């Protein structure tokens, strides 16, 4: 059945021609040399004052990258990227190590203000704890501009800084974990990222610590012809908890820009990491011109017993998205979750999904994915759920719904479900009646119709996480919550 009017209106409100963050910041900046070469990598590494091992790590990745071929299996099409026409380093001139916010270029501060990102730490009023405080790491082109609330986090033992800083200050931690979840040669774009990653966030939550506030990173691409290659590494030690948010925007430009990020999460025994993304890169204009190529590798490793990693994503931006936040469920009783709302408008192409790889006993995972296509867009869910020999009693529940608005778009579902263990129980459902019998029964019993109950339950999952996103980040996300499931197909 066709989509309901309310949903159509909601989606229209975030159509590509409504993009609000398309402005360009006019700021003095410097760029590295054009093109991808050892020289570029050395230049980058030197700029960041990196130790020798890091430079070697990058060079090794570059050599491997040069041997690799671009993958073509995703359902996206775009002209070939010329990696020699790109700049791999761009930085606002004034941010070479500002000591305090006062030293930061006011133009930059204004930019973040315009984007609604609070860079100034709110003063704590006597006796009043402000609600929803968020520590922000702001990445502008290739560098981290500022990280807020560092001191307060330090008191709790939490390390939150840019990855460049971490390479210098905490080399042992970085060395131990960098590339341990997404190996250097994992895939084409991850290898490229390993060679030329410029900045990103580093989070370390020590044993038993519950991170006192939300952490977030805000990525902004400003320069022309510049690729942004960020790298994020989050480690939660035994019993730790951290919730991390990521937001991103880019100016409206005619040519396509590349964003190839790698995010690695490590959760040890009893630890929990919640990773939320509001992806709002410039999606191109209404004729499909310009926009960001968002080729991202995100993976979490539930290394310890009872560990949990949860991915939440709201995808409304990018011309092309190629992204599969995944969980390796290595630990016994570990749990992976993936909640996604992906909205494609205009000429956007989204090929996204998740992988839940069950290795440990009693590991469980849940996938809830809602894809909405409008205009001339293509939206593909591609997911893998697999249970290996030793993953006895593994459980998965997957629900992926797609909704089409109009006749020129497409919605596709490509799930791979591989079970190598008899006691693993996998359910992949697109029929909305199969959420959880208990929950359904509960709702129906209280007089809700089946459809209301389903909407309540599915939206409930998503809402849970979305409501924790700061309002400034997630106006679109908030609107999307009310999107009805009516008319969706499996």
């Amino acid at each position, binding site marked *: 059945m066709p989509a309901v009017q309310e949903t159509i209106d909601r989606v229209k409100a975030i159509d590509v021609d409504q993009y609000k963050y398309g402005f360009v910041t006019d700021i003095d900046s410097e760029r590295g040399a054009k093109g991808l070469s050892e020289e570029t990598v050395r230049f980058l590494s030197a700029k960041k004052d990196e130790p020798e091992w890091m430079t070697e790590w990058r060079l090794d990745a570059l050599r491997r990258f040069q041997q690799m071929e671009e993958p073509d299996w995703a359902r996206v099409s775009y002209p070939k990227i010329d990696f020699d026409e790109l700049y791999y380093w761009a930085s606002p001139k004034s941010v070479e190590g500002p000591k305090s916010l006062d030293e930061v270029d006011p133009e930059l501060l204004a930019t973040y203000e315009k984007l609604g990102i609070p860079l100034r730490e709110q003063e704590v009023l006597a006796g009043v704890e402000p609600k929803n405080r968020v520590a922000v790491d702001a990445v502008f082109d290739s560098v981290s501009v500022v990280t807020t609330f560092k001191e307060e986090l330090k008191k709790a033992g939490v390390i939150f800084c840019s990855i460049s800083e971490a390479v210098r200050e905490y080399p042992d931690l970085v060395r131990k974990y960098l590339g341990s979840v997404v190996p250097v040669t994992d895939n084409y774009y991850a290898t490229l990222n390993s060679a030329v990653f410029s900045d990103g966030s580093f989070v370390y939550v020590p044993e038993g610590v519950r991170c006192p506030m939300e952490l977030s990173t805000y990525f902004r691409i400003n320069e022309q012809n510049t690729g942004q290659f960020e790298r994020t590494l989050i480690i939660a030690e035994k019993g730790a908890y951290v919730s991390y948010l990521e937001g991103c925007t880019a100016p409206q430009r005619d040519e396509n820009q590349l964003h190839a990020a790698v995010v690695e999460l490590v959760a040890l025994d009893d630890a929990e990491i919640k990773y939320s993304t509001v992806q709002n890169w410039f999606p191109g204009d209404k004729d499909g011109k310009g926009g960001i190529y968002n080729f991202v590798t995100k993976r979490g490793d539930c290394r310890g017993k009872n560990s949990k990693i949860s991915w939440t994503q709201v995808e409304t931006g990018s011309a092309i998205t190629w992204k599969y936040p995944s969980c390796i469920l290595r630990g016994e009783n570990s749990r992976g979750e993936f909640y996604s709302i992906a909205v494609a408008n205009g000429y956007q192409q989204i090929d996204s999904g998740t992988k839940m790889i069950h290795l440990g006993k009693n590991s469980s995972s849940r996938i809830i994915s809602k894809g909405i296509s409008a205009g001339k867009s293509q939206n593909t869910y591609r997911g893998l759920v697999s249970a290996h020999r030793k993953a006895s009693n593994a459980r998965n529940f997957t629900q992926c719904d797609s909704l089409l608005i109009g006749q020129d778009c*497409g919605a596709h579902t490509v*799930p791979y479900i591989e079970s190598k*263990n*008899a006691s693993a129980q996998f359910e992949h459902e*697109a029929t909305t009646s199969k959420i959880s019998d208990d929950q359904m029964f509960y709702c129906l019993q209280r007089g809700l119709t089946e459809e209301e109950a389903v909407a309540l339950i599915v939206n409930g999952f998503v809402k849970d996480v979305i409501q924790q996103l700061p309002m400034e980040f997630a106006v679109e996300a908030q609107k999307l919550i009310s999107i009805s499931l009516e008319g969706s*197909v499996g």
Partner: protein
Amino acid sequence: MNASVPIKHTQAESDLIGRFDTARGALTGSVAVTALREAAVSQIRDKGLPHRRVEEYKYTDLRAFMKAAAPMAAAADEATVRTLLDSHDAFDGLERYRIVVANGAFLPGLSDIEALAGEGVSVASLTEELAGPHGAQLLASPKSAANDGVLALNTAFVQGGVVVTVKEGAEVSRPVELIHVAASAGAQISRNRIVVAKGAKLSLLETFAGDSGDGEINTVFDYDVADSASLATTRLIVGQSHAARLFTSITTIGAKAEFKSLGFIAGPRFTRNQQFVNFAGENSNAGIYGVTMARDEDLADQTLIVDHAVPNCNSREFFKTVLDGRAKGVYQGRINVAPHAQKTDGEMMTQALLLSEEAEMANKPELEIFADDVICAHGATSGQIDEDLLFYLRARGIPEDEARTLLVLAFLAEAIEEYGEDDVTEGLEARVRDWLTGH
């Protein structure tokens, strides 16, 4: 990825290329047919046999499985075929007509030609048709299988088969059994075209007898279901065999037509049953069912692409798999909904029951949708026997073995019952029991 670099041929691929050169003289066909054969063999030469890097064969690596390719089977000896038919007991007791193809060639002498003619069914030899002016059309591939390796193997080597035509309005009173007999060792490559003309009705049973030894069996069924026509096909792939068994169905469904099929696999070491179904006319229904049983080292693959190319059609895909030992089950299903194919209703379900620790199931239920006013759903489950159900039965005094058998039978019977061809239900359920008791 780089097409210009010649691939290194496996033993089987070299054998196949050599076999084509040897068999060339015996492989009949018009000039156009010969060109198609040459093109198909070039495809094997250039790309090799389908392997796991080819997405459609990700789980079913024919290249790794086929160690060598046996020569083509020679013409069948009729007496041998007769003996084999006598001991062939699929659908015993069911009143039916027979059409016999042995070692890839139609045997009219053993087929019920006259009785069928009385019902409005004509049967011709594909070998003869291939030499005729429309020969090449008989080897046409559907768009969704344009580069399919198994189909190319068939086109290159096809020996013969039948062209069955049910004339307009004829409702065939009994099921027709199309038996493929392997009367001697060697590759058995056949292709059949089944035309059910406007308003006609046919129930087709596809069975296999004999032993092809090291030779692979590669059979294509090309169904043309005309407007308002009805066709049900039951494919019974049973019995042990160590060579590859490859089956392809190509179905075109006209307007207001009904198509049903059941693919039943139990026994062979390596089976691929692939189907390409295309809705060409509006207001039609298709029900595609599968029952798969595999044990030991067996691999059983049910692959399916349903193209909803026109509006207002319904399709149901329902597949059940039971795996034991170290067996591997594969289900790959895809529903395509073309732009403007509004009001499509597609529902796909695949369920697997794993009886042993080492069995493996790969499910891939795909949807590809380009129209906005459709209902399409898919589901996949895999798991083991529900201990609660087992307990329930045992608490009622049923021994464990029997309780398990009962549960497996109930699980598979769901698909057989939904298929709903009452004539064959009993026969199929007996086959499930045979498999469970190890026959």
